[in-house]
């Protein structure tokens, strides 16, 4: 008992140390005076809660263990049927189609802000799916993913600004340039393993950001590039009035002008890009190349013994992954209309990595859900914005405790002997 008491006291003190600067002391700006406002209540509540939880950890755990879902819940006919249908390809198809229909119809029923947030989420879905190739499937820890994202964004911004090229033409160019960057980076760097690769790619991300900041003639320096044109639909623009003789969307279809059209169009465009990404990656995974990524992650020596060139396979993963970041970047630039280096900091790379890890490495559906959760939840809880990083850390800790494999762990084909599979892991 005394040990639990000491443990609980220690946890309480730690909580206090952590929380006093965040919750306990607030800077209050009152005209020209800056005052420190002391509000002890939340800290006291948190400290007491942590203390009690630690103190009664064991009984609580026992309570939790005894309150288990009865076995009959899991094995009854309804859940069994549900699982069966989930494995049936037809049922899966139907489920996907339903989800797709909801995703398409949804924006017409909600506010413009919600659609806009969702568009942002779609960008992160794309980034997550792209990074998943290299981190989840090929098992290479890349920490500078924002660099490829930046290359895509700046490629579109620059080409559209300087040469007036359209979004549709720039999209493949942006993807291609990002892929080329990935390829050139990969050539020397992919000999490195694990942590070393992570450090070098981290450095690459920083170098890219610094270049964006300082290559004024190309990137506009810290100001970035503004006035990036929005994409058009087969030449139809979404502005109130068309530039030099073009037609606008609302005139063409005889609708009243509404700003919502552009927002919904961007959302649908993002959705289409995400679907294309999902489709392409799904195809790749069924190809020998996709299997080779996974095989390489599991055993590089065995791969070499089968005549595979590990460098080429890793390079293909990084190049493809970078290409998707490029697409996402171009779309991001088109949505924002203005980009600057601040959008491509290390935090951005870390966010995308968090999405991949949170979703479950190598799991497509998990990454999609995690990306949406990570972008949408902070928006829903705007008033708690200051505590965003705190909540982020909390979520990470909870994930480590309960779902270390991610929200939806990557699923391999069903096993005939699940018990033995667990034993062998």
């Amino acid at each position, binding site marked *: 008992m005394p040990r639990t008491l000491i443990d609980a006291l220690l946890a309480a003190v730690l909580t206090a140390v952590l929380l006093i600067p965040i919750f306990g002391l607030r800077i209050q700006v009152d005209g020209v005076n800056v005052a420190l406002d002391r509000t002890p209540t939340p800290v006291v509540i948190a400290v007491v809660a942590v203390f009690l939880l630690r103190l009664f950890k064991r009984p609580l755990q026992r309570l939790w263990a005894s309150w288990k879902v009865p076995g009959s819940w899991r094995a009854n006919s309804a859940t069994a049927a549900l699982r069966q249908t989930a494995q049936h390809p037809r049922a899966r198809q139907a489920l996907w189609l339903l989800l797709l229909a909801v995703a398409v119809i949804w924006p017409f029923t909600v506010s413009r802000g919600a659609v806009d947030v969702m568009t942002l989420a779609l960008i992160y879905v794309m980034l997550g799916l792209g990074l998943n190739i290299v981190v989840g499937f090929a098992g290479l820890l890349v920490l500078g993913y924002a660099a490829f994202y930046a290359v895509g964004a700046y490629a579109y911004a620059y080409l559209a600004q300087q040469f007036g090229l359209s979004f549709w033409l720039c999209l493949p160019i942006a993807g291609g340039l990002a892929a080329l960057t990935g390829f050139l980076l990969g050539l020397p760097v992919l000999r490195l393993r694990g942590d070393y690769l992570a450090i070098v790619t981290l450095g690459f991300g920083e170098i890219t950001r610094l270049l964006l900041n300082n290559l004024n003639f190309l990137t506009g320096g810290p100001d970035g590039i503004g006035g990036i044109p929005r994409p058009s639909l087969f030449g139809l623009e979404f502005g109130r009035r068309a530039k030099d003789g073009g037609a606008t969307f609302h005139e063409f279809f005889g609708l009243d002008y509404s700003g919502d059209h552009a927002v919904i169009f961007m959302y649908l465009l993002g959705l289409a890009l995400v679907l294309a990404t999902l489709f392409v990656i799904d195809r790749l995974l069924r190809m020998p190349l996709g*299997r*080779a990524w996974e*095989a390489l992650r599991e055993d590089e020596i065995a791969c*070499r013994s089968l*005549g595979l060139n*590990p460098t080429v396979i890793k390079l293909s993963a990084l190049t493809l992954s970078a290409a998707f970041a490029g697409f996402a970047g171009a779309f991001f630039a088109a949505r924002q209309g203005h980009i600057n280096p601040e959008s491509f900091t290390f935090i951005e790379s870390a966010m995308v990595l968090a999405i991949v890890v949170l979703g479950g490495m190598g799991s497509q559906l998990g990454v999609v859900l995690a990306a949406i959760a990570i972008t949408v939840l902070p928006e829903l809880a705007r008033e708690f914005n200051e505590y965003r990083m705190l909540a982020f850390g909390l979520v990470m800790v909870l994930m480590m405790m309960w779902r270390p494999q991610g929200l939806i762990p990557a699923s391999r084909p069903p096993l005939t*002997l699940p018990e033995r599979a667990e034993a062998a892991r």
Partner: protein
Amino acid sequence: MLKLENVHTFYGQIEALKGVSLEVHPGEIVTLIGANGAGKSTLLMTICGSPQASEGSVAFEGQDITRKPTHVIMQCGLAVVPEGRRIFPGLTVQENLQMGGFFADKARLETDLERVFGLFPRLKERRHQRGGTLSGGEQQMLAIGRGLMGRPNLLLLDEPSLGLAPIIIAQIFQILKEIREEGVTIFLVEQNAHRALQLADRGYVLENGRIVLADSGPNLLANDEVRKAYLGG
């Protein structure tokens, strides 16, 4: 078919192979026996080009492969079943085999898959199971099957009996015989000298990085020195 001449291999400063010459002819089963640390695995890895020989030459089917990178060598009609099996535990049995036939087209992949499943019916039963869930013997079969998927003319095996029950070892060696009858030459590195020499047409004995004896399998089995050193009297 395979010819090593005066091969020296170093691990840093340490000379693991001190001038090894040996030869494998088409259709043979040749075994290399020796104690722990004699350089058996090093010899096999040198053939595969990792590490590369610092001196001497390795030739396969008349082609010099001494300085070629591993992945090129492994596409020349040579396959290796590495020590410790090294299957892909997270991939299914079938995917493991497909990795072995990475460079084959779809039709060839199908026939080769059937051929391997013919040799190892156990693998067919478990084709959709993860490699890591197989027993040791099944994993060894999978590793051999994966090697065969590349349609090699020469199969190199590094201690296929390692850590397996005697009855499984007997099965594996029986299958090696069948594989030879299909026209695949076999070079077998083994610590289980008794079994290896019973199976092999010819054998080499490696000691401290040098070949000390070379003879036919039955002769080596009867050889007094070999009996004393490797067969327990």
